[in-house]
């Protein structure tokens, strides 16, 4: 078997009883004690996640902004220093290379935070498209570890361990030169859970100290470590897309319900023509939310049916811990995508009634002020 890559927190996970799994080549905990317990901790109190596997690509140079505008579908032209923008990054045919966070860490320095399993592909894509731009591209993933603290009391806990005034960091903004537990960090008010919270970028050698310090400091507030299982169920309830599911090389950001992050009116960018054409033609299918009316659990890949005919497939589905029912996101034909439409999901050969519902299933509790 291929040797799995370890994050700097590997030992901490094993010591805490984490059940380690192969996640895109990384050894990471799917859970420590229980996905449900970890999920609830983040919704009600706080959870600590190791997301050190995420990739970071550094762009610097006078053309960095122009190059980013060329690479991604969202409009970054108004980005302020320390601001963060979310965007799909597309192929010329409109398929998605990856969905990324763009951090403007200073005037001409940007961090692109990318999905772990896409890091090499993204780096290759970005460097191949950089010709003609005065920009230096480097993959700094191995020099950056990342810990996310998420949940309604995340700020209270983190504030006790940082010299940064967290109230001054707004949603999707960052503070690059600060400390957590006495170690140098970049802190941003971002996350992948549908809760308020922070992501802490640090040196790999400081990750363990920060992890241990925060867990200890948050114990009385109910902070617990949370694994990949809860990360997925939390992002799912908030209807945050996952690359390879709601968006992929074959599912465009328009189909993936990310039209808000595709600014066709901005200057030229890779994929613009294809996406404009797709929009003009009208989408043949799109990603919607489904709520199961009958009993069962909708799972990825299950067929979605209308009048006995398959009209799409589930992209992500599960038994929602917050709502105690089967929920799904599915890519289905546009004519059936209106909320309230009655459909069925084929669960192991049985047609179980389901209804199209608006997403997100779980309303975000982000602090936007």
């Amino acid at each position, binding site marked *: 078997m291929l040797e799995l890559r370890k994050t700097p927190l590997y030992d901490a996970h094993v010591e805490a009883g984490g059940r380690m799994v192969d996640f895109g080549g990384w050894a990471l905990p799917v*859970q420590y004690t229980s996905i449900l317990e970890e999920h609830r901790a983040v919704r009600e109190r706080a959870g600590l996640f190791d997301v050190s596997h995420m990739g970071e690509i550094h762009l610097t140079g006078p053309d960095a902004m122009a190059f980013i505008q060329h690479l991604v579908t969202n409009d970054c032209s108004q980005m302020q220093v320390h601001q963060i923008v979310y965007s799909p990054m597309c192929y010329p045919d409109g398929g998605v290379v990856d969905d990324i966070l763009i951090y403007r860490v200073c005037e001409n320095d940007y961090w692109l935070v990318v999905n772990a399993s896409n890091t090499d592909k993204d780096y290759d894509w970005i460097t191949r498209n950089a010709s003609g731009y005065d920009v230096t591209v480097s993959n700094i993933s191995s020099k950056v570890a990342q810990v996310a603290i998420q949940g309604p009391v995340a700020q209270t806990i983190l504030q006790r361990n940082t010299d940064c005034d967290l109230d001054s960091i707004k949603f999707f903004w960052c503070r690059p030169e600060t400390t957590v537990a006495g170690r140098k960090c970049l802190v941003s008010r971002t996350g992948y859970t549908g809760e308020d919270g922070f992501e802490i970028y640090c040196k790999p050698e400081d990750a363990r100290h920060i992890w241990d310090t925060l867990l200890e400091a948050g114990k009385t507030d109910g902070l617990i470590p949370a694994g990949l299982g809860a990360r997925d169920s939390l992002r799912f309830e908030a209807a945050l897309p996952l690359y390879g599911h709601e968006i992929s090389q074959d599912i465009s950001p328009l189909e993936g319900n990310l039209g808000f992050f595709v600014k066709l009116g901005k200057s030229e960018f890779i994929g613009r023509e294809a996406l404009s054409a797709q929009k003009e033609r009208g989408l043949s299918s799109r990603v919607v939310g489904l709520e199961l009316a009958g009993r*069962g*659990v909708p799972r990825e890949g299950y067929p979605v049916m209308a009048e006995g005919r398959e009209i799409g497939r589930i992209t992500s589905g599960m038994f929602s811990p917050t709502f105690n029912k089967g929920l799904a996101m599915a890519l289905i034909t546009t004519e059936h995508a209106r909320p309230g439409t009655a459909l069925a999901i084929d669960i192991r050969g049985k047609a179980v009634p389901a209804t199209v519902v608006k997403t997100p299933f779980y309303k975000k509790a982000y602090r936007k002020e």
Partner: protein
Amino acid sequence: MSAVKYTRDHEWVKVEGKIATVGITDFAVQELGDLVYVELPAVGDEVRAGERLAAVESVKAASDVFAPVSGEVVEVNEALEDEAGLLNESPMDEAWIARIEMSDPKELDALMDRAEYDEFVKEASH
């Protein structure tokens, strides 16, 4: 007599007369994590040993439960329909899944006893 036998698919079966009570093992439940849904068979279903009897679903995934013996389903544990979490609490006892009236009790001979099952699990997890 009520010896408990085990399958390689991590079901247990407890026999009383012609009736076999079937569930999934403590080891299976530990591996699956929090269970959130159980799809039970219907009373009256005819099942064959090795075929799908039920499905149990955790937050992450769905797993089939196979019939350890052939026969007719005579009772199902309806409590699991509302509370799949019972499987996490008491997999070997309260959270039995179905009772089968066996058509061929000799099928039990192919199953493992606890010591054999423990050995099997130990080997499987290496």
